[in-house]
């Protein structure tokens, strides 16, 4: 029951969505419209899951005075503050926008930007052309990097054209081949999920 019911619901919902695409059956078509709307509504409710999880994990850190429980306190307090301001005022209020635009966006952007430095370090220490394939990968990367910046154009007028040719022909061929094989895998997995042969997405245990 605990796995059979969700599996049956999944198959039922998926069947409606699939039939809706290929057949004009008013009852099914309307049901499919409702289901997609309901999923959007459910997803809105699900947005609180992350916050609940953070609350549970970090309040435990605070209670047990684990390492960096001070950061956990800041996290919970700030999260609740942002939620209260956003709900009581609006996400367009000056306070909310100040926090978001001047704290969240800079931290988020900078966090991702640090990856560039790690790429630079990896370029020097780890990217080795130990065999033909690795050499091909590195050479292609170099040509694409040069072709996509003005310096490459300055070095050789054919550089941008050559880089674009690599992207248009060889990259497209590779990505297309991978995409087609992935699509076959996706179709098989989807059929397995819809027919109930795959259960892993429901988690293990009761």
């Amino acid at each position, binding site marked *: 029951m605990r796995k059979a019911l969700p599996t049956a619901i999944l198959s039922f919902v998926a069947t409606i969505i699939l039939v809706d695409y290929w057949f004009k059956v008013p009852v099914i078509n309307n049901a499919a419209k409702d289901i997609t709307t309901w999923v959007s509504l459910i997803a809105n409710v699900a947005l609180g899951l992350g916050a609940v999880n953070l609350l549970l994990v970090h309040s435990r850190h605070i209670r047990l005075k684990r390492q960096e429980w001070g950061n956990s306190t800041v996290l919970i307090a700030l999260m609740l503050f942002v939620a209260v301001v956003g709900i009581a005022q609006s996400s367009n209020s000056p306070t909310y926008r100040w926090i978001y635009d001047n704290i969240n966006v800079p931290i988020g952007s900078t966090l991702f930007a640090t990856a560039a430095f790690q790429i630079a370090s990896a370029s020097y220490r780890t990217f080795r052309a130990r065999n033909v394939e690795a050499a091909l990968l590195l050479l292609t990367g170099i040509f694409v990097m040069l072709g996509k910046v003005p310096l*490459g154009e300055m070095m050789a007028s054919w550089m941008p054209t050559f880089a674009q040719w690599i992207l248009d022909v060889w990259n497209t061929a590779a990505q297309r081949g991978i995409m087609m094989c992935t699509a076959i895998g996706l179709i098989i997995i989807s059929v397995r999920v819809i027919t109930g042969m795959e259960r892993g997405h429901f988690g293990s245990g009761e």
Partner: protein
Amino acid sequence: MSTYEKLQAIDKRVIYILLALSIAVPLLFPLGLPFSVGAEVKNSYDWIEKNINKDDLVLFSYDISTGAMPELGPITTAVMAHLAKKQVKIIGIATMTDGVMMARQLYAPFAKDLPYGEKFVNLGFLAGGESGLSSFLQNPYNVFKADADGKPIESMPVMKGFKDVKDIKVMISVNCGPVGGCSIEQWVRQGFVTHKKPVWIGLNAVMAPGSMPYYRSGQLTGYIAGIRGAAEYETLVGRAGLGTSAMDAQSIAHALIIIFIVLGNVGMMAIKRSKAKGGAIK
């Protein structure tokens, strides 16, 4: 330890400092390196020029996370400048939560050209990924009754004539990937495959090679990739911005990365050869 071995073991912070300098110096002392506009960006620009007219409804999805803002912000600004020139009506949505706030930031410079409520609306966050998008395209009022500020949308002039996907002229998504929102695949599936509508994409350079097959197979009408794409589009709309000013720094930084790769491999080969010879080289 040989010289090569010492160079291979250099502290990574030295590399970080060199990279930081390679970006900072060209920003502070611009070189003004010229660059050309590629065919992809030109075709994407021309498509909008030829097919989009005044008061056409454009669905613009700000699928931009905070981490992608430095790359996708300039693309969005350039494209919005083009759309503002064309005086279209923009229905703004975001399939990721961050996108709602990015939309506010990126719309601000165009508030005069595209008055809110008349030529632009920010409907807010569309939850549910592809399911939500599917519902929205069948009837936007299924998933939105108010804009991102809570104002009712039914009476807004910009929403007049927007009943479903048939009223949309083009779907534009400036997209940072599938995490938390709709991926390019999902836009293609819903926009092009299901509803036969043109889908026009701005994307970050990381995703560009992987999404190329969609463009090459004609499933995308627009394809602006990375900061270089932003710079080229800025040139076409005549509005030099962050994309253009980034090109010099991008050039020097790329050159540095290539030098690192070459030096690292030269060092590896030298060490290998010396070990094969059975001695250390100075």
